């Protein structure tokens, strides 16, 4: 068994624990520990991606118990890619946070690391209850990141966010209880296998349980009508945190994809719910577009952009073709980076504009705007899906891959939302960067440390790399898609991975 597989979970945990113990030694030590952890994590994730790229499924049996008894981690192309995306994002977020926020928010570094642990755990686990546990890890860390150092409205939003997610977790537990009561196992591969042999009598009960579970995932991924929590929560979160949160909707989407293919892939329940997800995805896309138009603040606008990308991914995944999912995965990585970049940029803008903050209506100048404006332009072009950046390529791939039956609606939704995004971003950009300073306006420009601008540049740089290397990357994502669409092979791999020294069966 390859010990690297468990490291994306363990490294942040150990780092987090060490940060906690070194908190009294000051911020510099914390930063040092945190950076060591993140660098190691990045290296591990790259190594894992390389290992996964040849298509082997690595199964890691925790405690050396057979997968059905204990908990198994599963590394395939998809999870490797998600982990690497997270690590890359984490580097930029940490960079930004080290520009000063980590001083203001108590326990920032510890919470940050533990959040990474939760996210990676969710991506790697092959056990449905363990998925719940890691959901909780990442959620509770996100509550902390969201609330730490915040006040007033952020507290109300935080309460909203927490209560909503606690309820969603409760539903998850109900679903898990029903599922276990009917299937009697928690390993996803085992469940997938047993589902294909379930009696028609139990089938509807199982559908109910899995339906509940999908509702939970959709709530995390912010699908209509479960997205109301997102705009305010993301729009109010501290920049570095909001940027990191971008990956969290993707965790929900990942879960939809993983459970949808591995668990529901075969047998009686296949195809269940995809049509509904497609329809809701398109509707969400349009409503998110409306939200982008409606946003009064740049950060809210970016939050709606996150929603747009989540909805696009729902559409891509719900179409259930290798090409659409492949395109979706490419788009997933792209949208993660660009939305994160925009959140960071919005914060820079907000701090530069003094009292006007990032309100779009306010006439307020922005000093030293050249670089932010340029970065905003890049990010806006990319996020709106305009050529030639990664956003365009992702949408292009998705549109090309859309099957003929669904083409009219899917294209309409995609293009209309793009149009709304372009319109709104043009307005936002011109209002933010095309104002000139009236005399005597007391705009106090907060200095922006270079590391923070560097973080934005880094994130946009990822996007440019994704544009240049679009060929190989989309090859990889397509391979990942075809791998997850062939759950039988994966189930086989997981079930037959043998413990090192224990008996595989009694």
């Amino acid at each position, binding site marked *: 068994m390859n010990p690297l597989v468990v490291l994306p979970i363990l490294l942040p945990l150990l780092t987090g624990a060490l940060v906690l113990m070194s908190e009294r030694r000051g911020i510099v030590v914390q930063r040092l520990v945190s950076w060591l952890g993140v660098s190691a994590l990045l290296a591990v994730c790259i190594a894992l991606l390389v290992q996964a790229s040849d298509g082997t499924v690595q199964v890691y049996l925790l405690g050396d118990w057979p997968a059905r008894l204990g908990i198994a981690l599963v590394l395939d192309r998809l999870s490797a890619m998600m982990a690497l995306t997270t690590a890359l994002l984490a580097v930029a977020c940490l960079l930004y946070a080290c520009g000063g926020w980590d001083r203001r928010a108590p326990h920032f570094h510890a919470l940050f690391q533990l959040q990474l642990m939760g996210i990676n755990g969710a991506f790697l686990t092959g056990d449905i209850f363990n998925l719940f546990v890691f959901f909780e890890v990442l959620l509770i860390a996100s509550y902390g990141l969201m609330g730490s150092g915040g006040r007033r409205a952020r507290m109300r939003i935080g309460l909203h966010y*927490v209560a909503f997610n606690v309820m969603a977790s409760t539903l998850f537990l109900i679903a898990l209880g029903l599922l276990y009561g009917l299937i009697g196992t928690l390993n996803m591969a085992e469940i997938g296998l047993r589902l294909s042999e379930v009696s028609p009598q139990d089938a509807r009960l199982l559908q109910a349980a899995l339906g509940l579970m999908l509702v939970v995932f959709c709530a995390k991924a912010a699908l209509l009508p479960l997205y109301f929590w997102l705009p305010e929560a993301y729009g109010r979160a501290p920049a570095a945190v909001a940027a990191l949160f971008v990956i969290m909707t993707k965790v929900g989407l990942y879960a939809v994809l993983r459970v949808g293919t591995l668990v529901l892939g075969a047998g009686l329940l296949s195809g269940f719910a995809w049509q509904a997800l497609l329809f809701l995805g398109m509707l969400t896309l349009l409503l998110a577009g409306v939200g982008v138009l409606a946003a009064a603040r740049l950060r809210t606008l970016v939050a709606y952009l996150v929603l747009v990308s989540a909805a696009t991914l729902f559409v891509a995944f719900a179409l259930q073709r290798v090409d659409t999912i492949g395109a979706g995965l490419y788009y997933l990585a792209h949208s993660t980076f660009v939305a994160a970049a925009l959140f960071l940029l919005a914060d820079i803008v907000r701090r530069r504009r003094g009292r006007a903050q990032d309100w779009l209506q306010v006439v307020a100048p922005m000093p030293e705007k050249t670089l932010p404006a340029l970065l905003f332009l890049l990010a806006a072009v990319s996020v709106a899906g305009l050529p030639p950046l990664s956003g365009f390529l992702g949408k292009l791939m998705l549109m090309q891959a859309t099957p003929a039956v669904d083409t009219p609606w899917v294209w309409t939704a995609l293009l209309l939302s793009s149009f709304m995004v372009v319109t709104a971003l043009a307005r936002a950009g011109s209002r933010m960067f095309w104002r000139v300073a009236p005399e005597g306006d007391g705009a106090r420009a907060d200095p922006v440390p270079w590391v923070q601008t560097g973080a934005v540049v880094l994130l946009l740089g990822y996007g440019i790399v994704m544009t240049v290397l679009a060929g190989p990357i989309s090859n990889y994502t397509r391979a990942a898609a075809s791998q997850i669409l062939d759950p039988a092979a994966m189930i086989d791999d997981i079930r037959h991975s043998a413990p090192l020294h224990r008996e595989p069966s009694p």
Partner: protein
Amino acid sequence: MELAMASAIGILTAGGIYLLLRARSFDVILGLTLLSYATNLLIFSAGRLFVGKAPVLREGVAPTLDHYVDPLPQALVLTAIVIAFAMTAVTLVMAIRSRGDNLSDHVDGRRNDPASAAPQPVAASDAGGGSAASQGGDA
């Protein structure tokens, strides 16, 4: 036995959901707590209900499901209880901070409780400049 358990779960759920939909943060928390009882009982009963078959192995009794109840749901419920407790703690703290900062315990920050008639805090500044301690609750 199953019927009693199922109906109890149902009633806890109903009570929980009703409270969940109330407007005050503390009521919502009460609702979540009720729901968590319901959930725990539900997961627990996924292992089926038996009296006197605790999953603690005894000497001379074969370790099979004929003599012991399914231990796995119990382990799951334990995890769920602990997590629910952690969530309750965080929710409560969020609720009191929200109450303190926004002068309302309405979940949507509405100010229709006559107890606090102080002016609404300025919405814009939520990022916390300087030390939060000095500016903490001051509107």
